[in-house]
């Protein structure tokens, strides 16, 4: 299924951001998922979850702190 999703995972600590991202991608064949996190570890883990599953990932640092990751396929 191709769709758009937004996940606000700020404040969640390891391993929850990775698990929630993995669950969100599970039934998607393509589309766009935006994930917001606020820790470097969560940023790296979510990025790896996306790339390992064939998604193109771009990372943007948010002005108030934290990161927005855009996963596209």
């Amino acid at each position, binding site marked *: 299924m191709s769709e758009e999703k937004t*996940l606000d995972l700020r404040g969640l*600590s*390891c*391993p929850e951001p990775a*698990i929630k991202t*993995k669950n969100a991608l599970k039934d998607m064949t393509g589309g766009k998922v935006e994930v917001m996190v*606020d*820790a470097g*570890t969560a940023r790296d883990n979510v990025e*790896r979850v996306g790339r390992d599953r064939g998604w193109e990932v771009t990372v943007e640092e948010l002005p108030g702190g934290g990161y927005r990751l855009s996963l596209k396929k």
Partner: protein
Amino acid sequence: MSFIKRFFISRWGPIITGLAVGVLAPVLVKYGNPGNMGICVACFTRDIAGALGLHRAGVVQYIRPEIIGFILGSFAAALIFREFKPRTGSSPIVRFFLGMFAMIGALVFLGCPWRAYLRLGGGDWNAIPGIIGLIVGILIGIVFLKIGFSLGRNRPAPKALGWVVPVLAVVLLLFLIFAPRFGRDADGNPAGPIFFSAEGPGSMYAPLLLSLGVGLLVGFLAQRSRFCTVGAVRDLVMMRDTHLFNGILVFIAAAFVTNLILGQFRAGFEGQPVAHTDVLWNFGGMVLAGLAFTLAGGCPGRQVFLAGEGDGDAGLFFLGMLAGAAVSHTFSAASSPKGPGAFGPAMVIAGLVFCIIVGLTMRERTEV
């Protein structure tokens, strides 16, 4: 800087960290640390608790510079790479008790996951039931994670909160160097704290600067690479992700080879340093530790590194470990080379009950 950043979050990060720990821990043993205990986050935190007089087991009292180095190395890495982010509020009291019970379980086995792997790499086969127990504990934790277990969100906190644990580390270093005496016995003689063991594992240590240097290096590397001895197994099983697990394989292999080279490899069950041969409670202690670490999100090393980068909840987990060491020794729960303490098994069961209730009842309120 950007290259270093990318390198450590690449697959090489955990591998280099595992290699460093696997080589340097046996070297610390060569220079004086207890056998197969070049680095043990649980044992060393227990020794610190003893040095502060939180327990009075005379053979395990020393302020371990490796732990101080872990905290300050991670703190430095976090500052340099702009990852020092003070935060708290994710079920702090629960994390304190998870730290306490993780410590109680680890001291029934006689080592945290780091030392379990080091014991394996040194030929202590009693580590095998311990590591199997650790994996079982992690698997139980994964079941809870799969049904939605969460300790909830943290929130950004004022800068000062993030400095608490690093400052504590500096205070511990000053206590180690100057060993001030606060107490007096009935005759007016100084009676500690700070207590330092005159015999036993607490009296065995590598030179301060070497231990501190290794601690700083490992703390720095592990903060960058997110090295975690529990997350490695969790991610492998849950996410089919070998990123952290590769680091553990290299860690064990490097410890094995270094022990061989240094003449420290001795295979067998009997007569291993700071170890007992009770299979059931080597296993049982680590089931509790593995479960508690998984619910808290990472191994004791990882908790210390997170505390160094400003995570107040991880800092409280570390303080829970200090309290757990005190409880273990005052409640006769800690094992000795003769076997489990009188109340070790009962305390493990109490800890498992606590962890299972936490695992079943704690959920994030609003799904995202």
